[in-house]
């Protein structure tokens, strides 16, 4: 009767989901050096990440909390392990692809959930730079989140346009912007026009 039936998720995802590492249990007394919150609960996921950084700029601890699904939990759990001992600069460059790879892959429609941990980490590092008086280090300084639901920035939209997305639906497909509540549609379209003008005329 009880044959093992395949999960949609890999064993690594399952393990990190069953036993999430580094969950922040006592937020009030945790003395972080940087903290970031991204996502939108209305869209079904939100992520908070907090880091401690030593004098040499090495991440010594990383803790998180989320209102998110299994892939958000698992990807953040694995990310929080990975960044410990890393230099902030290096941690800054971890991409969602790296995380998905560590997890042994994620189902296509779940990739966006894993993006959250990575964005929360960068938000935490930005916060750390700010607190340390090094705002010039913030790479996303000029970037702006356009689509709240999917955490898509203007930079990402510009890149997608450069890579050939010339219609709203192509953009949606590439960046996933505007695919949830749709509130960002007008802004995305006006950026699409702006960037198409800039890069194609």
């Amino acid at each position, binding site marked *: 009767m009880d044959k093992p039936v395949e999960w949609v998720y890999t064993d690594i995802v399952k393990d990190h989901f069953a036993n999430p590492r580094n969950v922040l249990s006592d937020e009030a007394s945790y003395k972080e050096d940087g903290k970031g919150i991204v996502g939108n609960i*209305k*869209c079904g996921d*939100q992520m908070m990440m907090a880091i401690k950084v030593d004098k040499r700029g090495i991440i010594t601890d990383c803790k998180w909390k*989320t209102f998110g699904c299994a892939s958000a939990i698992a990807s953040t759990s694995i990310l929080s392990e990975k960044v410990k001992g890393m230099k902030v600069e290096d941690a800054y460059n971890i991409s969602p692809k790296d995380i998905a790879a560590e997890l042994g892959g994620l189902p296509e429609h779940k990739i966006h959930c894993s993006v959250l941990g990575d964005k929360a980490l960068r938000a935490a590092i930005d916060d750390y730079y700010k607190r340390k008086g090094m705002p010039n280090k913030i790479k996303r300084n000029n970037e702006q989140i356009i689509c709240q639901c999917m955490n898509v920035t203007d930079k990402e939209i510009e890149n997608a346009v450069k890579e050939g997305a010339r219609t709203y639906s192509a953009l949606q497909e590439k960046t996933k912007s505007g695919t949830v509540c749709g509130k960002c549609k007008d802004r995305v379209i006006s950026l699409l026009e702006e960037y198409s003008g800039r890069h194609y005329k």
Partner: protein
Amino acid sequence: MKDRNVYLDNNATTPLHPEVKKAISGLFDIYGNASSLHFFGRQAKSAIETARADMASFINADPDEIIFVGSGSEANNTVLNMLSCCSALCSSKYGGKRQIIVSDIEHPCVIETSKCMGQKGMTVARAGVQRSGKIDIGRLKDMINENTVLVSIMMANNEIGTIQDIKSISDITHRNGALLHTDAVQAVGKLPVDVKELGVDFLSFSAHKIYGPKGIGALYARSKAPFCPFIRGGHQEKGRRAGTENTIGIIGMAAAIACRRNEMAQEARRLTRLKQRLKDFIKDNIDDISFNGHPEDCLPGTLNVSFKAAEGEAVMLYLDMEGIAVSTGSACASGSLEPSHVLLAIGMEAEDAHGAIRFSLGRETTDEDIDYVIERLPAVIKKVRGMSSSYFKKG
């Protein structure tokens, strides 16, 4: 971790009733095509007609008013699609009326089809619901007019279990000269259904929600109501649905319905009691919850609960690890990123909709199953809330 398997997803589908298994396992030798005139064909034909008569009497219809189809979704598609048929013959049947009304909490097979009708030039109006999931009858009255050709409102909702007052809706509909369709996939076999008393023109139902086989459903079409086939090209079902009859499915469905005749009333009482146990436990032992759906007019085995700040897919999968199968209104589980349209329609915040869990009990659910859920559920909710970025316990 898991000590037993507890299946509480009976609104999604149900296990076969042992009697149904018995009824269909003897059937694999009846392979004749019911359209053939020889002995093999006649054998299949007569089995199908017996099944049709049994099923018809269960809902107080005439046998000729029952059309076998491939699923509840097909039954629903058939009804909506016939209205946009443009042939002169068809349009004259509907007197040129162009408006259809569907509720906000219909199954996607009705909502999506109605959108398609909209693109084909029909006017589609959406009847809203109240917090309990009941149709706002006053608003429905305002919406319906002489241009309305069809009103389609489900009898019992699959997610929250709310049961509509179809009788009053049919009165309003008929007073305005429109037709009434009800998707009764969750109702037939769980509640008493009498098509004459309800006054419906079309009613869809399905076998696999009531311990019958998958891939078979039926559409009741009142003999006086207009009809236009959705699947054409065969004289089967009196020309109303082409395609060789699914003999095994049809007989399996009739067997399932025969079982419902005997078991339905008693089971409804039993499930109501089991559900109440689970509900009371949750109310008394878990904070920050709310129950969704109508408190009384609700399917006996359906319990829909929102656990604040606990994301539904995570809860569902932790329960799965404990061996407990439920479903969720969370977007993440469906892959659509949108939380359940039913929960949004009753006025829930998206955040709460993402944290909704549906327990749907069935004939195999026991007291021991509920004991087990009661034992495991609090820890799961605690775990998910413990890592939730949006849960702050007061005090």
